[in-house]
């Protein structure tokens, strides 16, 4: 195993009832990787992301984080280990400000004990959120005053990703970060992902948009029918090849290849 491996999935299987959603998937994620996870609907991308996020336990197989076998579920445990997920529906509270969303579930507060007796520190939360966004060169007005439901879809996505990056110091999982965004907003989000990559953050991003994938990712992992069909360096492949793997026009790696790859 390479020395800079952050997280390894070893022969992960996951079934729901009779349906095998993931079939013996192995994947090494190196520190600083920006991996684009692609595949048709039902190919197993979401299940794979949910395993990494701690939302699902694998039926069998191992997850190794920084050399140690780990159980990532429940999501709070994954978060504790430094793995943050930005879900497609953003997981923001619409009636809260960006600052309040930043600290949801991890509020800065005076006092100890039950949440009923902890006095919320709105000012500190606002200051820290603004600082965090500044460091990522995200310019959004009204971080501490404007509710996110009054922000544009692009601004909301920037807030959600910035929150993930703020807390997820090891691994950031992005589920369709540019879906439902316009051209200009997508560009801003992709720029942010690039900046996060440049800062050394490791990112796995599910996407349907190969063009966006090519703009930010150094690796492409193709899922097909619950298996890892291809694991390619972006610079060593092209769109036609990736599409061929997605549609099955090009054959998946054999089981033996996958063993060797793991």
């Amino acid at each position, binding site marked *: 195993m390479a020395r800079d491996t952050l997280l390894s999935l070893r022969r992960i299987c996951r079934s729901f009832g009779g349906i095998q959603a993931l079939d013996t998937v192995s994947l090494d994620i190196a520190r600083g990787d920006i991996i684009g996870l692609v595949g048709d609907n039902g190919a197993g991308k979401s299940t794979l992301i949910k395993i990494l996020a701690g939302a699902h336990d694998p039926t069998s197989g191992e997850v190794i984080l920084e050399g140690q076998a780990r159980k990532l579920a429940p999501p709070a445990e994954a978060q504790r280990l430094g793995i943050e997920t930005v879900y497609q529906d953003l*997981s923001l509270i*619409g009636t809260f400000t960006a600052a309040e969303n930043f600290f*949801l579930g991890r509020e800065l507060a005076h006092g100890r004990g039950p949440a009923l007796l902890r006095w919320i520190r709105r000012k500190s939360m606002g200051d820290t959120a603004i600082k965090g966004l500044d460091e990522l060169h995200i310019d959004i007005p009204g971080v501490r005053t404007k509710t996110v439901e009054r922000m544009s879809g692009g601004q909301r996505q920037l807030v959600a990703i910035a929150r993930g990056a703020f807390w997820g110091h090891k691994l950031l999982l992005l589920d369709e970060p540019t879906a439902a965004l316009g051209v200009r907003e997508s560009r801003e989000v992709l720029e942010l992902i690039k900046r996060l990559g440049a800062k050394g953050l490791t990112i796995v991003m599910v996407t349907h948009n190969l063009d966006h994938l090519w703009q930010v990712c150094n690796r492409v992992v193709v899922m097909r029918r619950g298996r890892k069909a291809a694991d390619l360096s972006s610079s060593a492949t092209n769109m036609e090849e990736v599409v061929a793997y997605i549609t099955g026009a090009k054959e998946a790696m054999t089981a033996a290849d996958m063993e060797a790859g793991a």
Partner: protein
Amino acid sequence: MNRAVMPADHPLPETAAPAEGALPVAQAGSLPPGTHDRRALLMRLLGTYGTIIVLALMLAIFSVLQPGTFATIGNFRNIINDMAIGTIVAAGLTVPLVAGDFDLSIGYVASFCGLLAVGLLSSGLSIPLAILLVIALGTIIGVVNGLVVSKIGVNAFIATLGTGTIVVGLNYAYSGGIPLQLTQSREFTRIAIGRIAGVPHLVIIMAVVLALLWVILNRTVQGQHIKAIGVSPESARRAGVAVDRSRIVAFAIASTCAAIGGVLMASNLGSGQVTAGDSFMLTSFSAAFLGSAALREGQFHILGTLIGVLTVAVGNNGLAMIGAPIFTQFLFTGTLLVVAVALGGIGRRFARG
């Protein structure tokens, strides 16, 4: 697979260019520019200030019609004193509503707790101990509500209807359906009837409870979590909020306030009536929903609930003052509720769109 580049979501400037500089020509069948915005703004204003506008209008109209009786300090003191107990119960209910849950048991809890307080006093318990026990019982009923709803996953509507009915059963088992009279000291009645520096105790207790609930919802981590789960429990759960615990706390607060209301009612009446608090359920829901169309578009909040109670109280008082028959009070409250909630909902939709 390779998606075509999507058209920009903002219309290109060229689209609007021809209209610029030229006189705007209204085309048949199309609204002039800005109409939609103006209507949206109007709806938002009504959704945000609708209840307050109604309250202000009523104050003005009744003051003009009955300057000698309605618009007097004495009358307003009466209005506020009479609405104090209902406000405490309604403000308590507001907390689970903020969390996205219903509590239909509050009226029955108030009835039983008031009756039980009188019963305990009659059996010789001291006033503080009796009150403490009864309020603790209220809290426990709330915790049970929260546990059934969050841990067992029963719909809050049905769960609290169930626990409420059980509480009615306990009430009848304890009282046999017969009102209990206070057998000893009138000290207990002084809690609700006394005054400090001219201000009725009830008004002071109401203010304290309101302030406490406001602080919990707006200044504590717990309040932040209760608000979050009311908007999106799934988002809150993903962010690490203890959703079940927050729901339980919210139910406990509502039920505790209902118990306080019940005790004050018994003190005010000087007896334990079997069904005296039942009507708090409907009036509290009305007040909270009216309040959701006051100051915040379609959101429940403590100050809004206070405004909601005040609006109904002023309306009913004013109608009585001008000699309108009793049925008009029900017509008024019902109509107001439907209109206010519709506006609140509309206001919120426009705000999001």
